[in-house]
């Protein structure tokens, strides 16, 4: 019999709040974390509105030795991992170290750390580049540091599949559970708000240049004009179902289905593969479209990409065939962190019977035939939720979570 993977702990760090409780309260209250850029002087950049994590003091939450050797993306991951373990009432020190895995995702690396050391290199010379440059900027630093901190030495890894990574890593976490791990900490974290990190986001031309935090990121809206970048993280404690039952910990839900699909090269003339990812995840979960209660959409906020997502949704569920929401309008697109934060919201929707709404969107485009949850949160019996993620240039992933009977 296949070992089942359930989620027993949540950790979140978002522009709307530090900690799951703060994040969820803001999502239900409709509070936004988007605002004018304060992390650096915005005058030299066309991007004016971003989703910054505020009031994060790493030294209050982590040992100073760890703080100096980590970029913000890793500090977010460590803090989220701590919260997920607390929430799941798990002391890793009491568990066999090779039965605990760490699978994370990251898209933009330790941008601010890398930039600082590159500046040291050019301004002061090679001898003044910090030793931690060797490990801190790298995407895999998050899995490594979480593994070291908690002595979790089971099969581990990292996904670098842009925003889709936030789901791909959870799919892999389920796989390592099936293959024998009892626990896996899994999720995405990203922080790219340094000058070099921000500049890298400009050329694709997908970021909104709006100066109004309430009008910058409007997926599916007639006024959609690009997305707003955000930062943050979410880590889930994924656990083998029988272990959770034996420990007496109530799961938020089961990772019931997962699929990933990469787009064909545009030269081939074949369309994108988002629908294949969605149908693959549903088939994997042995779930019919009509049994899905809510979709946490990718919601790029770019009209062309919004239309593609709506076509895929209409193809699977029929036009306006399922409730759809994009709570990340309140946080911005947090790259690898975004879809894991959506998974947290989906799991909390299962638990609390309420779907957070899509903040700021008011006029859904006629090109987008979706039943978008707008205004107040929608109370609903949620037993099955689908989370969708797309990354830049062709990544697609989908995860189905289900309430545990």
């Amino acid at each position: 019999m296949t070992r089942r993977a359930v989620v027993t702990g949540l950790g979140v760090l978002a522009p709307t709040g530090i900690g799951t409780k703060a994040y969820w309260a803001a999502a239900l209250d409709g509070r936004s974390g988007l605002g004018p850029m304060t992390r650096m002087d915005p005058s030299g950049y066309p991007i004016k509105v971003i989703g910054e994590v505020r009031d994060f003091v790493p030294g209050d939450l982590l040992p100073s030795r760890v703080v100096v050797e980590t970029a913000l993306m890793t500090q977010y991951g460590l803090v989220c991992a701590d919260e997920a373990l607390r929430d799941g009432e798990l002391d890793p020190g009491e568990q066999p170290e090779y039965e605990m895995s760490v699978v994370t995702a990251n898209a933009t690396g330790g941008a601010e750390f890398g930039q600082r050391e590159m500046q040291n290199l050019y301004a002061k010379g090679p001898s003044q580049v910090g030793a931690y440059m060797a490990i801190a900027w790298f995407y895999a630093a998050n899995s490594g540091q979480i593994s070291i901190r908690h002595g979790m030495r089971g099969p581990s890894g990292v996904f670098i599949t842009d925003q889709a990574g936030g789901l791909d890593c959870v799919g892999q976490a389920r796989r390592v559970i099936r293959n024998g791990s009892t626990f896996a900490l899994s999720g995405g974290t990203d922080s790219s708000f340094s000058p070099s990190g921000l500049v890298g986001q400009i050329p694709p031309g997908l970021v909104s240049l709006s100066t109004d935090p309430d009008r910058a990121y409007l997926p599916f809206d007639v006024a959609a004009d690009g997305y707003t970048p955000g930062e943050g993280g979410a880590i889930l404690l994924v656990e083998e179902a029988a272990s959770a039952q034996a420990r007496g910990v109530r799961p938020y839900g089961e990772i019931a289905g997962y699929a990933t699909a990469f787009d064909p090269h545009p030269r081939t003339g074949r369309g994108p593969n988002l629908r294949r990812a969605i149908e693959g995840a549903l088939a994997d979960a042995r779930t019919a479209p009509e049994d899905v209660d809510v979709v946490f959409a990718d919601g790029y906020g770019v009209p062309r990409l919004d239309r593609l997502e709506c076509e895929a949704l209409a193809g699977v569920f029929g036009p306006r065939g399922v409730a759809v929401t994009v709570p990340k309008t309140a946080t911005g697109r947090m790259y690898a962190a975004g879809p894991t934060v959506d998974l947290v919201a989906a799991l909390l929707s299962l638990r609390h019977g309420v779907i957070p709404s899509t903040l700021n969107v008011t006029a859904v485009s006629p090109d987008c035939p979706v039943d978008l949850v707008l205004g107040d949160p929608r109370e609903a019996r949620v037993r099955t939720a689908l989370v969708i993620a797309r990354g830049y240039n062709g990544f697609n992933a989908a995860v189905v979570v289900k309430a545990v009977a």
Partner: protein
Amino acid sequence: MDELTLDGLREIMRHCVGTGESVNLDGDIRDTAFTDLGYDSLAVLEVVTQVQGRLGVSIPDEALNDIETPGALVEYVASQKAGA
């Protein structure tokens, strides 16, 4: 900084490289191995980078093999300064 004292090194370790959760740098650390103080090889490299920048001395990577304690690092810097 003209010379590296043990207290000077202590400050560099504490404020530039940080301390672990259960590490006390206040005691007599002169002959305690860096590893026992919670400083792995990369952390020692970071300490040395900071020391080089502040003292204007050069500490080649090969020399690090013999520098296992704060006391050994202080002595090495003093000998470099004396030789300069």
